[in-house]
């Protein structure tokens, strides 16, 4: 089975935005994978998790979620309350959140779809994403989806929205865009739908005529990302298994 090249490039693009040093608020799913990829490439951030822990070194195994305390605690350099944690977010270099359903205002929907009282699809809800997004100085949204048209319409429900002074970056397989009042393309990938991404982001915004091309993924970056995808798939991450062309982890698979 072959790994999805565009997912690897997406993951590498996100990893490049992880600070070399300093603190980053790390959300579940793609952000965990992006920071781990960055660590494998030599970055040494301190990761702050909504569960009230900060981790300075790479955990032995990839945590199965941001509340995988057995994994996280062994590498923890700080532990505190929820209030402490969100007070720290504004001081962190950035907050990185998963954004499967997002829009060009940087709003994220994890409520689902349909009427509030009787939704047609009910999703998990937001956890601490609203608190982190509202306080972040820089918010990096990782959209792992493969349907570029999903970005063209405002989210149906708003779970999290950037604060009034938050700078927002949207990372996708098609490219990276700076959102908000000064919306612009930061980089563009070689994905076949990249032109559609430009068109969607450009609607109602002034874009530079020549957006930067995404820097080609190096062999070292590719290896780091694929290694993380394999680690993550073994720990149950469905998005990683999908990228590797594998079915989701089933019972009895070998642990790390």
């Amino acid at each position: 089975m072959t790994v999805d090249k565009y997912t690897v490039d997406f993951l590498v693009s996100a990893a490049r935005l992880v600070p070399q040093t300093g603190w980053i608020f790390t959300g579940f799913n793609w952000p965990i994978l992006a920071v781990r990829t960055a660590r494998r490439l030599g970055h040494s951030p301190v990761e702050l998790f909504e569960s009230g822990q900060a981790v300075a070194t790479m955990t032995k195994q990839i945590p199965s979620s941001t509340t995988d305390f057995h994994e996280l605690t062994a590498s923890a350099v700080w532990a505190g309350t929820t209030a402490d944690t969100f007070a720290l977010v504004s001081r962190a270099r950035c907050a990185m959140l998963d954004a499967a359903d997002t829009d060009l205002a940087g709003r994220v929907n994890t409520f689902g779809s349909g009427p509030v009282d009787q939704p047609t699809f009910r999703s998990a809800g937001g956890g601490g994403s609203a608190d982190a997004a509202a306080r972040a100085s820089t918010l990096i949204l990782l959209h792992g989806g493969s349907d570029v048209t999903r970005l063209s319409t405002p989210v149906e429900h708003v779970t999290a929205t950037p604060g009034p002074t938050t700078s927002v970056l949207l990372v996708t397989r098609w490219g990276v865009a700076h959102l908000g009042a000064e919306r612009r393309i930061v980089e563009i990938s070689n994905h076949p739908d990249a032109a559609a991404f430009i068109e969607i982001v450009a609607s109602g915004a002034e874009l530079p005529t020549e957006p930067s091309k995404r820097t080609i993924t190096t062999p070292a970056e590719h290896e780091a990302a694929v290694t993380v995808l394999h680690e993550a798939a073994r720990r149950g991450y469905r998005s990683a298994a999908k990228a590797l062309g594998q079915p989701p982890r089933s019972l009895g698979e070998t642990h790390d």
Partner: protein
Amino acid sequence: MTTIPGPTSLERSVARVEDGACIYIGNFGAQLFSVGHELIRQGRRDLHVVMGSGGILLDQLIAERVVSEATVAHCWNPVGPRTALAWRDAVESGSLILNELSLGTLAAALQAGAWRVPFCPTTDLAETGYVTENRSGGRLGVATSSFGSVAVVKALAPDIAFIHASAVDPLGNAWIEQGRSDIVHAATAARSTTVVAERIIETGSYHRPADVPGLVVDDIVISRGAVFPDGAAHAYPRDIDMYVSYATTATPAERSAWRSAVTAEATTT
């Protein structure tokens, strides 16, 4: 110093929960499956459950009709992540009274409960569905003072809080080795708090002061593997397979078998 009556059994501690009570079940991300499963076994009904992360424990409590109202920040199977199906069905059908708060606002609500004040400043969620669609159930507002205005959340004080600790001493002082999240606020806000600890230790023998003061603890349960199949810091790992297998349960019999397997495995942690 007040000495708490010696450790009690999980069965007796959970029996104190009356039908219709409001209970906090901790911890955020290390869920007290032992408590939830005992609530199911005892056939409790109409509970209002407060949980930072609902997870597959809340999913079971909904599926087994223990819960009629929930105040939560989210609910899913964190391994995958996967959808929590009973949660999804209950919310989609409107059969669950849901008060939805962000994790920060939920913690602030418990903090207000702990301080015995009517509300607490919190994250401004005015542009989100928590406020615009009243997903919070009327728990979010704005307070104005001579110092300015601020978003606030209504105080929340559960009848009983169950919190998980790595260790507890006979005075009820408890040590938590994971992120502290909303645990101390919940323990202080609740009218009665039970510490479910992995082990009991002699007073003064831990290497640092306690996280939860015995002052707010009314009951101690010693239960090795209390949060299994979740993991406990420095004790036992999350059992990924158990989480994956939960997603295959669909009937009461399958869920019952899953809980039996959890109970059996928990004793070996």
